[in-house]
C-alpha cells in the first residue's frame, strides 16, 4: 500500500476509454451549475415557467387531502397564492400539470444518468435514526419551502435570476440553516 497515489483513480479494469470516464466520473460543481443555469433559461424560453420542484408536491398533497374530503384549496394559504395555482385548481389538474412533468423529468433524468454510468442501485434505510432524521428533515424543509413560497429550486435557484429580492433573503437564511444543520449533523448523525 506504499505507492498509493491521489491520481490513481480506478474506473474498473476495462473502463479506460474517455466515454466511460465521462459517464461514470462525477462532473465538477461548476459544470453542473453552468448546465443547470442554461437549462433553466431554455425552460423559461420554451415553456414560460422557471424550474420549480416543491410546488408540484404541494399540489399532489392537497389533491390527496381532497380525496379524504378536506377542502385545502379553500384554506388561507391557497387564497394568498391564488394567482400561481388558480388555473391548475380550476382545471382539476393537481396531479398532472407542468410541475408534475418537471418532477418526473428530474427522476427520469437521474435514472438515465445512473443507468448510463452503470451505477443504478437500490438504496436501503440504514437504521431508525437515519429514517427518523430524514423524515423530520423532509417535514421541516417542506414546511419551510411553503412558508417562503418555494424551495431551494423555485425560491432560490429560479428566484435569483428572476431578480426577486426574496431569493436573497432565502439565501441568507438557508446559509444560517445549513450552518446549524451541519452542527446538528456532526452531533447526532456520526
Amino acid at each position, binding site marked *: *500500500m506504499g505507492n*498509493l*497515489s*491521489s491520481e*490513481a*483513480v*480506478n*474506473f*474498473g479494469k476495462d473502463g479506460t476509454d474517455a466515454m466511460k470516464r465521462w459517464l*461514470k*466520473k*462525477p462532473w465538477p460543481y461548476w459544470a453542473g451549475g453552468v448546465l443547470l443555469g442554461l437549462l433553466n433559461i431554455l425552460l423559461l424560453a420554451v415553456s414560460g415557467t422557471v424550474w420549480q420542484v416543491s410546488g408540484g408536491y404541494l399540489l399532489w398533497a392537497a389533491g390527496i387531502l381532497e380525496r379524504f374530503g378536506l377542502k385545502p384549496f379553500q384554506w388561507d394559504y391557497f387564497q394568498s397564492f391564488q394567482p400561481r395555482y388558480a388555473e391548475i385548481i380550476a382545471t382539476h389538474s393537481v396531479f398532472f400539470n407542468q410541475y408534475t412533468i418537471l418532477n418526473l423529468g428530474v427522476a427520469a433524468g437521474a435514472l438515465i444518468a*445512473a443507468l448510463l*454510468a*452503470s*451505477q*443504478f*442501485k437500490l*438504496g*436501503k*434505510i*440504514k437504521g431508525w435514526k*437515519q429514517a427518523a432524521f430524514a423524515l423530520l428533515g423532509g417535514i421541516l424543509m417542506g414546511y419551510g419551502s411553503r412558508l417562503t413560497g418555494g424551495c431551494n429550486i423555485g425560491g432560490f435557484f429560479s428566484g435569483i435570476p428572476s431578480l426577486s429580492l426574496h431569493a436573497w433573503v432565502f439565501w441568507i437564511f438557508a446559509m444560517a440553516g445549513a450552518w446549524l444543520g451541519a452542527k446538528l*449533523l*456532526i452531533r447526532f*448523525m*456520526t
Partner: protein
Amino acid sequence: MKVRDLDCLYEVCPIPLIKAVKELKKMNSGDVLVVHSDESCVGVMMEEWAKQNHYSIQIEEPKDGEWEIYLQKP
C-alpha cells in the same frame, strides 16, 4: 500497519467523510481505513480532503455503484 473497515453504505454526503475523519483520529500513522460507500460523490469529496491533509488515497469500484476508498494515514 492496521486495516480498518468503515461501513458507510446507504449514507449520504457528508456523513461518510465526517465518520472517516473521526475514525482516522483513533488510528496510527501508516494504518489504512477502507470506507465502503454507494455514493459517487463520497470519493470525490474524500479525494479533495486527502489532498488537503496529505493522506494517500485510492478509490476502487469493485461492484457497479459501490466504492471502496482506501485512506492511509501519513
